[in-house]
């Protein structure tokens, strides 16, 4: 896990003045590797499916390479100490996603009616994502500034979250979930952006209130329970999640928001009792939801025995399992399988396309890339110096992890299906752009964490904790 690049000794002993390795060369090399894989994957798809390379291949390669060169140069310039693995992981996932979407485009074109090509659109979204990545790095020079806008962002987040619920169903509803804004041919899921706004708010809020929330009033069975009145925030988060579930019928976002908040609360207060309270509330909410909401019950029943519903609600999942099973260890090869048999393979079920064509090895590789991305995020959280930054990095990294877990778990039958997107990999503009923003914040904080000789006085508390941050070879 811990490469030499993250050795934070420099951060602790910056006064010595010796140069901390910036590792930008590592990042450049890894990005080059990611671009190579992206281009090779495109070639394989073209050759396997159509028998020849597409004419746009050169343009595509230049474009994708250009994107990462720009991103890399910006990082090199204004976040030189950033973690060198974050961006290459993203590049690899985006590139692989583009190849698979392109592959599904080609499969769609072989069909009776020509379907829209989604890969170029996704490339445009990726471009927009990189642009936002750059803007955030340029504008947010110090992540701590964000805490000043915590309440503004909270309002913005809530507004974005509530927007689809308030809009008429004709604009906001797709397949039963009211989480979209569809205008002029484009679909936006504001919830993806709301997630980030709310995480910033949670971090700021918990940073402010954590001493109070960490207060314990009584001990029950060896566990220190918080005071009754301190239950307010977690109950608020719970109610918010339930509202999302009721008004937008979005099981995924509901689960995601609540999970993130509980984990951030735990990190802030260091009290496991919050986790238990969270799990209890979740169990209660899940039970009530199962009893009351038909769509939740359908999801759960389908999950328990997908083959019993394989012609109706379980069709998608069963097709996904067939794809994965047929792929086996090595997969059918890019372009060699039939991932188009899974409905909405480009977005919700892209992981099953990866599993079918790249096999177990490919899918596990993707999971591991996500794991690397998440753990680098959590590592940033470990070594960043301020409490707000710690909470923010932890929240963002965990959000990514939780989302990947819930989505991949759903697609592989481990969990009920929720309808979240697979970050970076799946087709979908809002998800892609929002996740670029998320990574931009992580990059910014990892730069702050590893930057030597902090220009501002380091709080005593962090110094006290320094040894725990230091070791790990």
């Amino acid at each position: 896990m811990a490469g030499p690049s993250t050795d934070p000794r420099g951060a602790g002993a910056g006064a010595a003045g010796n140069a901390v390795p910036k590792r930008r060369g590592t990042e450049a090399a890894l990005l080059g590797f990611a671009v190579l894989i992206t281009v090779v994957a495109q070639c394989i798809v073209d050759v396997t499916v159509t028998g020849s390379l597409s004419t746009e291949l050169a343009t595509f390669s230049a474009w994708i390479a250009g994107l990462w060169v720009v991103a890399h140069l910006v990082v090199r310039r204004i976040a030189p100490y950033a973690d060198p693995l974050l961006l290459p992981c993203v590049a690899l996932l985006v590139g692989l996603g583009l190849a698979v979407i392109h592959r599904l485009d080609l499969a769609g074109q072989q069909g009776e009616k020509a379907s829209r090509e989604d890969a170029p659109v996704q490339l445009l979204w990726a471009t927009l994502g990189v642009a936002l990545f750059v803007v955030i790095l340029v504008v947010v020079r110090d992540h701590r500034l964000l805490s000043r806008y915590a309440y503004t962002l909270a309002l913005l987040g809530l507004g974005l979250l509530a927007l689809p619920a308030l809009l008429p169903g004709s604009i906001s509803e797709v397949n039963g979930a009211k989480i979209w804004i569809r205008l002029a041919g484009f679909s936006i899921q504001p919830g993806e952006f709301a997630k980030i706004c709310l995480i910033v708010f949670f971090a700021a809020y918990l940073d402010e209130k954590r001493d109070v929330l960490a207060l314990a009033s009584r001990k029950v069975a060896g566990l220190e329970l918080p005071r009754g009145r301190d239950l307010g925030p977690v109950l608020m988060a719970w109610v918010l999640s339930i509202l999302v579930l009721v008004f937008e019928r979005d099981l995924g976002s509901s689960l995601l928001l609540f999970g993130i908040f509980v984990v951030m609360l735990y990190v802030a207060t260091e009290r496991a009792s919050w986790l238990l309270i969270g799990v209890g509330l979740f169990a209660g909410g899940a039970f009530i939801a199962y009893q009351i909401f038909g769509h939740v019950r359908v999801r759960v029943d389908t999950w328990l025995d997908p083959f019993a519903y394989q012609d109706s609600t379980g069709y998608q999942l069963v097709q996904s399992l067939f794809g994965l099973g047929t792929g086996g260890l090595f997969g059918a090869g890019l372009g060699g399988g039939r991932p188009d048999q899974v409905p909405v393979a480009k977005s919700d079920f892209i992981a099953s396309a990866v599993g079918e064509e790249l096999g177990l090895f490919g899918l596990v590789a993707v999971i591991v890339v996500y794991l690397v991305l998440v753990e680098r995020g959590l590592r940033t959280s470990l070594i960043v110096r301020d409490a707000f930054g710690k909470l923010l990095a932890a929240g963002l990294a965990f959000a990514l992890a939780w989302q990947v877990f819930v989505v991949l778990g759903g697609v592989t039958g481990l969990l009920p299906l929720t309808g979240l997107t697979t970050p970076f990999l799946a087709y979908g503009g809002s998800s892609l752009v929002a996740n670029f923003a998320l990574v931009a914040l992580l990059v910014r904080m990892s730069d702050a964490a590893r930057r030597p000789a902090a220009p501002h006085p380091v709080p005593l508390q962090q110094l006290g904790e320094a040894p725990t941050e230091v070791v790990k070879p």
Partner: protein
Amino acid sequence: MNAPLRRVAISVLVLFTLLIINVNYIQVVRSDELRNNSGNTRVLAEEYDRERGSIIVAGDPIALSAPTGDRLTYLRKYPQGELYAGVTGYYSLVYGNTGMERAENDVLAGSDPRLFVRRLADLFTGRDPAGGDVVLTLDPAVQKAAMAGLQGKTGAVVALNPSTGAVLGMASTPSYDPNQLSSHHPQKIRAYSEQLDAADPDPRNNQAIGERYAPGSVFKVIVSAAALKAGYKPDSMLKAPNVLDLPGSSATIRNFGGESCNGGADQSLIDALTVSCNTAFAQLGMDLGEDKVRSMAEAFGMDGKKFQIPLSVTGSAIGDIDGKAALGQSSIGQLDVAATPMQAAMIAAAVANHGSLMKPYLVDQVRAPDLTVIDRTDPEEFKKPISKDIADQLTTMMISVVEKGSGKAARLPGVKVAGKTGTAQVGEGVPDHNWFIGFAPADDPKIAVAVFVKNGGGTGGGVAAPIAHDVMKAYLDGQGG
């Protein structure tokens, strides 16, 4: 805050490990199961990309792949639809494949090892790999006569070449249109399938090889064989009472329609078979004992084991026989005695072929896409239930059935026909099953046939024998005989 952070990091690791374990479970442990699940159309869809071989009868394809303009390159077509549905089966996107499409899938799909050299050549020459053809033993005239005879009935006809075991005809009704299950439109396929589901019986059940019924008096041929083997002669006298009391039970056995066989007097074995005397055969079976009857039935193939022709034929058996009374009833083919029409045809074929039962087979040749024959089925003996002597005596007895007895409807002008009728009781108020087995010409058998009509309601001689007549005539006419 670092302690909980580490725990969060470890939890994430655990969650992802769970994902990886689950993916391993699906892609490795359950891989084969998912790949071969009949609902998984992937493997099938891949097959649609290559030209599947044809199933051929008398030079004409009864199943072939025709190129289409849509995304599945080839469409499976069955030009004669219902006529051969029981043999071809279907080749469905939704329901997988059945019948010959399934049994000979390796050849048709081109993955059979016998096509290996050819495939290797395709690899180097860049030809699109194509499947091999399967040439069947069926005779179109026999098949058409059989289907025409079964028109409007539920039943089956099986015709065999007794000296080789080649299946000349295999018909099952009600039939269905395999084209409609093999289209490229899942919705329509499902709709048609639901329609078939609703029918009774499901037309996809192959009555000839997949269902077993009480053979009734047809079984008397086996009891006769057991008697002859035990030393009886065709003119040995048997007790033939009007009503036979079954020992240890209040049940009695009567003759069909309550008639008497010989006014209640003793009757010779040949005459008892000719008029299909129930009381005489029930008593004969009890006199012979269960072992002799059972071992003879097993020798003819009624041993409960299924076998492949290469379609799977359900095993026929005489079931458990509990006591003498049960033996009496079993000896006239009732109670738990159950035979497929294929088995019934095999009984006739064994007698016709002088006691040697040839293994039934449907595939005559396997051909490579360039029409070279790469495999040909050699006839082989399946079982040897009786000696030539006994077979010849049985033939004489079965000729008597057709010439003087219950099977007159099967007589052919200028040709000696041997046969046996069967009318199996099914239950109170339910029409009887009707059977006929036989072969012709009796002195030089070229075709052995079994006809079964489910709940035909008449007698074997009245309902089934005329169909057998038509089938045998169609074949012998075609043979110039």
